[in-house]
Structure formats: C-alpha cells, structure tokens
C-alpha cells in the first residue's frame, strides 16, 4: 500500500532542508493540564542527520509551490521538481504523532509563496492556531514569516509561535534584487520590525500584567546565504552585529551556498568551502559569548576570515601586545581571549584560583588545550616561550598541524576546541 502522506512528507522535507536553523531553544514552558507537551529551555536534538546536523523540529514546508523565482532556491517557480501541498489536518496530525513519540520538539513551518504573501501567511497561521487551540499542543512552534506579510498577520503568528523568523538571504540589497527580483530588503526588514515591536510590547505588557498574551517568546532569527554573491565576511558580520542589537534577534544563521540551480548564470558554479561557513559561526559565537566586537574579528585590512585558523586564534596572533595573560590574576574576560580556553575552563580557572595558585598541569585537567594556550599565558612553571618571544608567524606555523593541513576543508568538525 502506498502511503501518500509519506510521499508528501519526503517532498516537502527535501524542499525545506536547506534552511539551516533548527534550534528550538529559548522557551521554557511546563506542561499544563489538558495540553500536550512542554517546551524545554535548551533545544533538544532528537536525532542527527548523516551530514551531522541536529534534528530538533519537524522542519517542513506547507507547500513547495511558489510564484517567486529566487535564483538560489530549489523551489523557484522555474524549477521542474515534484511539488506537493499538505492539508492543515495532515500537518497537524504528523506533528502531534511525531511529538508524542519523542521524535521532535515541535514544528518549524515555512512555505513557498502561493497567490500572494498574505494569503500564504494566513495559511501558516491557521496551522499554528489549529495546533494550539484545537489540539492544545504545547510544544515548540517556529513559523517562518513570508516576505511582505502584513502587520496583522505577523501579529497573529506571534501569538501562537515561540519563534518567528524571516530570512535575509543576501546581505547586500543590490545582490538580493539581482538574484530574487520579487524581493527587496524592505519586504524583509518590515516584518522583522513588526516582530521586534510585538516582542517588546508583549514583554512590556507582561511586566505589568502577568497574563498578558505572549508574543514569540523565543524571539526571532534569520539566515544569510554565504557564497552565492560577492559579500565579504566583514560585510556579513557587520550586518549580523547590527541585527543582534535588536533585543528580539536571537540567532543569525549562515548557510553555505549549495549549487542546486547550477544552470543559472547569475550564480557561481562552485560552492564556497565549508570552512567559511564554519568560521562565520565561530565569529558569530565570539560576538555572542566572548565579548568580541565585529570589527575586532574582521576589518578593512582583513575583510575575510582566515580559513586555516579560527577567528579567536587569528585575533590573538594579530594582537601579541595583549599577551601573555596571567592566569592567576587576569580578569575573566581576558582569560576568555586566550586561544585554547573556552567558557567552561575559564570559569573553572577563576573559581579554582581563589583557593590555590593554578598551575599548568591543573589547566590541563580543567580541559584547557595547552597545545594552543601555552603561547599565550603565563603561570608559574611554564617556560617563557610565548608569542612575544617566538613571534606570531612561528606560532601560527606551529598551530596549523600537519593533520589539519591535510584535512579537506569540508571535514572540519569542531565548533570550538574547548566547548
């Protein structure tokens, strides 16, 4: 017997998979009586794909029919591909059944544009409402807002969703217009600010009235495609850091361009090295958790990230004057800047040194990667062969291991050596 729902599921998952965001974090909600499920503060990955990505949400499209023709998208109208559309009931059933089996944390729903932005957006909202109000589904809900959607519909979506997102896709507007003629930055930034406003207003209301309705409590996220057009890492990261100044903006995702529509002459025929996407995430991480500003990571002289070494090491090599850092005295923020020391070990160090002087062997036990850190820190018994004695070029040479030189740029695995 053929399962037609399964076929739709395959088609519409295929169509949605290039959207990288999957985090289901940001909301904690206990189970309530008469409802299904809860939301767990830290997003749980329930599976991992064979390319190593987290599967947390049922990431799916309502339909992959689309009236637009964005060059970088597999669902563009000029592509000849299998198309399908879920009914609202089908999608709701799949979500609930998967959820009850602990396959997923919830639903991440997007859609191709059918008829017009508001018509499409309205259907997304109907799925969300059905789940929340009829099924009393209490799991995680992420809706992707349609470019050009109206304020009313974004407001409705925010009532039901934990997170809303709208993808920027291309950092420079001229490039976006070239590749996606039906879109411009305004059609994206406008819904983005509707989300920001709704988020802030609801936070404000809830301070006064505890039961005021929530609006996308997990905020919003966005995605940029990397390598489909000529943006430098500096242009991308500067834009990210501006986006992060919005209080509702929780994550910016970077998606290495995959040449799916290689017949289109406006697009490069090659995909950028996976290392670039990876370095961008590291840089983003440094901005969010390590107190780095974007112009410390990339600047006019170095507009692109170094693909051979991570951005933290790269910064350290450009700033020998900041080292060595005295592990027993320096501030937490400075310790965090030492290559080879992550958040966890930095915290252990500042706690432990209240009781004893911290030595090199203790650092090792605390998970510090001494192979890297040794050139940048000072503690009692470490030989004084640091970055200033050796000079940055030599340290760099030593830290690019032969193994790493052999490794293809598509095989990088670690997010951070010490995370």
């Amino acid at each position, binding site marked *: 017997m053929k399962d037609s729902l399964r076929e739709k599921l395959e088609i519409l998952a295929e169509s949605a998979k*290039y959207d990288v965001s999957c985090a289901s974090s940001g909301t904690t909600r206990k*189970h309530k009586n008469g409802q299904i499920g809860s939301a767990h503060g830290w997003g749980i990955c329930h*599976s991992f794909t064979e*390319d190593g990505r*987290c599967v947390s949400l049922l990431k799916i499209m309502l339909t992959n029919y689309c009236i637009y023709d964005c060059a970088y998208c597999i669902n563009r109208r000029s592509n000849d591909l299998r198309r399908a559309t879920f009914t609202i009931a089908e999608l709701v059933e799949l979500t609930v*059944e998967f959820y009850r*089996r*602990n396959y997923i944390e919830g639903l991440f729903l997007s859609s191709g544009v059918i008829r017009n932005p508001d018509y499409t957006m309205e259907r997304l909202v109907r799925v969300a409402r059905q789940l929340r109000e009829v099924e009393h589904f209490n799991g995680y809900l992420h809706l992707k807002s349609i470019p050009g959607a109206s304020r009313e519909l974004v407001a409705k979506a925010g009532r039901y969703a934990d997170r809303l997102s709208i993808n920027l896709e291309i950092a420079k507007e001229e490039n976006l217009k070239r590749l996606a003629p039906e879109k411009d930055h305004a059609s994206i930034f406008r819904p983005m600010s509707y989300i920001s406003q709704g988020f802030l207003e609801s936070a404000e209301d809830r301070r006064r009235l505890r039961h005021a309705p929530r609006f996308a409590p997990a905020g919003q996220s966005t995605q940029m495609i990397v390598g489909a057009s000529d943006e430098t890492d500096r242009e991308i990261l500067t834009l990210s850091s501006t986006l992060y100044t919005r209080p509702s903006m929780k994550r910016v995702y970077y998606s290495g361009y995959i040449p799916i529509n290689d017949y289109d002459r406006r697009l490069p025929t090659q995909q950028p090295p996976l290392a670039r996407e990876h370095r961008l995430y590291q840089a983003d991480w440094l901005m969010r958790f390590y107190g780095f500003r974007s112009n410390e990571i990339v600047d006019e002289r170095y507009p692109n990230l170094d693909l051979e070494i991570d951005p933290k090491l790269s910064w350290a090599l450009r700033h020998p004057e900041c080292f060595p850092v005295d592990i027993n005295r320096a501030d937490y923020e400075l310790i965090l800047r030492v290559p080879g020391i992550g958040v966890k070990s930095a915290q252990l160090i500042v706690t432990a040194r209240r009781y004893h002087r911290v030595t090199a062997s203790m650092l090792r036990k605390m998970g510090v990667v001494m192979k890297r850190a040794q050139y940048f820190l000072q503690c009692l018994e470490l030989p004084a062969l640091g970055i200033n004695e050796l000079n940055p070029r030599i340290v760099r040479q030593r830290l690019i291991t032969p193994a790493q030189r052999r490794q293809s740029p598509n095989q990088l*695995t670690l997010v951070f050596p010490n995370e």
Partner: protein
Amino acid sequence: MMNRFSNPTQTAVFRYDKTFEGLLCALFDAYVRHTFPEQLIGPEEPIPLFTQQIHEVLTRTEAAERVWKGLKRKLGSNVRRMLVFAWLSEEEGSDTLLLRYMRKTFDTPASIIGVFTDSDVLQVKKIAQKVAKEKERLIQFVRFQKAGDGSYFAPVSPLYNVLPLSLGYFTDRFADQRWLLYDTKRRYGYYYDLKQPLEVTLEEDGPLLEGWLSDDLCAADEHLFQERWKSYFQAVTIRERLHPQLHRQLMPRRFWKYLPEKQSYQ
C-alpha cells in the same frame, strides 16, 4: 586530620551492599570505627589480597539519613545532585572516590566544592558531567512506540544508570499519555499511569525485552509513523555533505538499535 584514621600497616576493606544508602552507612561506620577503608567491595566480591581488616557494613536507614543530613548542612542541592549523578555512573572505583569526597567535606571546615586543584574534587565533577551528558542523550534518543491499547513503550540501554534521572522530563512532557520506559540492560523500568512513574520489573522472557513491540501488540498505525519518520530523516539529509564520523560522534552507535530511523525494514 590525616592521622586520625590512617594506619599505614593495615589495609582496611569494607563490604557493603552496593547501594547509595549502603555507601552512606560505610562512611558512618568509618567515623565510628576511626578506620577509613582504602577499598570498598560488594556482596559477592572476593576479599583482596593483603587485607588486614574487613568490616561488613549493615545498611540502616537511620544511619544513612544522618550522613545525608550532615551533607545537607555542608553542601547545596546542586552539589548533592552531583554526588548522586557520580554514584549512578556505576564506574569502577567511583564509590571510594565519593567516600573520600564526603569525608573531605566533613573534615574540612571550609567548603571544598570549588577546590578543583584537588583531584578528587575535579574527578567527581567530571564523572557527574559524563553522567549528565548520558542523561541528556537518553532524553534525546528515546523513541516511543505506540501500543494497541494507546499506551507508549520505549526501550533504553544507557551507558550509565540514568533512567531515574530523566523521569522529570518524561512526566512533564508526556503527562497526558501512559508510558513505559524500560532499561533492557539493567532489567528494570518505570511505568507512568497518568499520575506518577512507578518502578517495574518485567518477566524475564516477556515480549518487550527485545525492544520492539511485536505486530500484535502495537497500534495499527505505529509502523506507518515509524516509516514516515524514517523517510523524513532521510529526506532532510544533505547528501552533498555526508559526514559519517561526525554523525556517529553526535549520535553514538550504541543508541541506534532502538531508533526507527536507523533500522532497515524489508
């Protein structure tokens, strides 16, 4: 502080019942007898060579409670939780490690919890972190199968004994469905009857120990949803970027046997 207990010519061994309560009683007895054991052994274990002294610990609830109360005075709930986590690791030697940790807690006037320069303190923390990680993984990779009677069943076999630690998650999230989580390695589990999880042990040759509900036990649409999930899993893979090594690192092989997406059906 050292010479209160140690007597270099003797190796003291305590035998206890390998329960956490028993461990607390061992500590209690050590203080009463002024002898701190170098080694702990379980009921069936042979006595090590060169043992000078063997003491049989009797597990008594009052003694265990007194020790636990004493710990409560000196340790916050997070640290006590860490001790329980380390205990559930079932790792070789973790019991003597915990005994030393608790002894140091009592013998040192100041708190020892942040003294990571002490290898016992660091070690307990590390083991507890490994256990916490395994608990997270259990929560990630449990897959319920729906039974014909509307209840849900999931087999587990974690590296450490973390099933009891994960119950909070399941009772919260799946509060409105009946479920049975069963550790097929340690042969016990919990049945949740819509009110609370109860510890259960299944008969040795029962149909559930295989891990998969047989056709006559599972709900009519169960296989359909397993197949759909598997199809979904395959559809979202980006084949241009296959990375089996990372895949196995994130989702270790030992979990695959109970994951529908990693099964091959005919």
